[in-house]
């Protein structure tokens, strides 16, 4: 996959995982919005989630997940958006922001917005992780044997 496609993928990923509030805040930076139309109106549907036996083995179908998606067009560029659950608004906002990344005059601003989104998420995950790490069991009587035979 070339660099440009990879960047697009990372962008769509980041927008999918952003919260509704974060997306609403992000889109506000682009007001007034350029005119846009839907290639695919925001809609929700189901994807069957696959996993692997033992984490590494054969594929199996675990169960389904509800997601939303949307495709918009603005200034001749397409934007693809996804969101968890039945959340049409988030899917639409994600699609618009993805589209702005393709529009030359808006791309820089979008980069900055994305960086802020990612930083916010990282901070949140980091705080969660620290809290969870505090519940790590410490065996004071034994060496933590990462490289010793178990």
């Amino acid at each position, binding site marked *: 996959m070339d660099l440009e496609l990879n960047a697009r993928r990372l962008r769509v990923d980041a927008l999918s995982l952003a919260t509704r509030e974060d997306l609403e805040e992000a889109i506000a930076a682009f007001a007034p919005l350029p005119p846009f139309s839907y290639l695919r109106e925001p*809609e929700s549907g189901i994807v069957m989630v696959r996993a692997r036996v033992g984490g590494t083995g054969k594929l199996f179908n675990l169960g389904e997940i509800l997601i939303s998606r949307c495709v918009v067009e603005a200034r001749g560029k397409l934007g693809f958006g*996804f969101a968890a659950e039945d959340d049409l608004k988030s899917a639409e906002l994600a699609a618009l922001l993805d589209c702005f990344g393709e529009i030359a005059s808006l791309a820089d601003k979008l980069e900055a917005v994305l960086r802020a989104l990612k930083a916010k998420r990282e901070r949140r995950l980091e705080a969660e992780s620290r809290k969870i790490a505090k519940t790590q069991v410490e065996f004071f009587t034994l060496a933590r044997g990462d490289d010793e035979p178990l």
Partner: protein
Amino acid sequence: MYVAVKGGEKAIKSAHALLSEARRGPLDIPEISQGQIRHQLGLAVERVMAEGSLYAPKLAALAVKQARGDLVEAIFLLRATRGTFPTWGYSEPLDSSAARAKRRISGTWKDLPGGQILGATFDYSHRLLDFELGDVARHSRPLGEAEEARGEGPRVPGEREPGQAREREPGETGAQEPGETGPSLEALPRAARILLGEGLLETESDDGETPGDLTRRTYPFPYSRELRLQSLARADEGFLLSLAYSTQRGFGSTHPFVAELRIGTVKVEFWAPELGFPVTVAEMEITECETVNQFRGNGGRPRFTRGYGLVMGDNERKALALAMVERALRAPEYEEGVKGPAQDEEFVLSHGDNVEAYGFVSHVKLPHYVDFQAELSLLRSLRENPGGTGDGFGEEGDGDGAL
């Protein structure tokens, strides 16, 4: 035979009105919100998603509310709602090793790489009611003490007064303190790798086959292991728990060790045709349990066998039971003989789905007037003509929905 029955509309309408009244309860108690159910009765929601086989936390919370906390009814509601959405295809395989863990323990190694992480667990907690969580102090307090100690526990800064409920979005946890310090979690390699390295454990590898999907068609027994895992992932937790217990009590023992149990969040990737590459579309929580079970010879090179349990959401008890039952169902594969119910594939997989079970058991309460009248007149005629060969009920005449 179908016999039309008319009437009852008024009674049914009134029953529904009464149901919504009962659901709401006394009006002087604040109505519970979807967000409160999602976050404060979270494990009920997780169970509904796993057995409803649809990961949709907000809808599952609504189902719990609508079902008045009857989880099997909520699971039924979620399954029914599932049918109203279009299906878009299959995700990329989850990478459970990359899950952002919130709990990870092992019953086989106390210091496995990455460590044991207890997370928010009921383990080691006193299984005694914590009256501090209750609404009302159990007894009046001496005067003067009452002001500070009116039993609501510590108030998180910014939290509303009780009764002023506010929806919280996923990820926003009430008790989050932004200034949390200390190290964050390390990467957590799969525990099974320790044994795999020495060749002491069966390996799992991908044969590139497209797995069957029980939601799209029916399959004859025996099932493949993949189909069994799909079926068990949506099976009733109580049913699996009892079956797992039965194996421990000797009805098809599997001698399990929990190599690893983890609960964490994974990304769900979906190959979008319009993009031509997979993208992350959402995250979901999963509970994964890997057991290491009694070893089997393999040309003089015995190896541990494995059981695997994977469930959507935070469902530790179910994942554990699932891995044990999954291993028990592999009895024919290891020529262990089918000695207990948990090893009987047709028995386990045909009866584990609580939506199916609920439906068929419940239909007995629906009108069977004609069936019953037939039995009744048969019985009467047998009594009038003694010496007949009657031995009780006639042929099972239960055509579906017969009146």
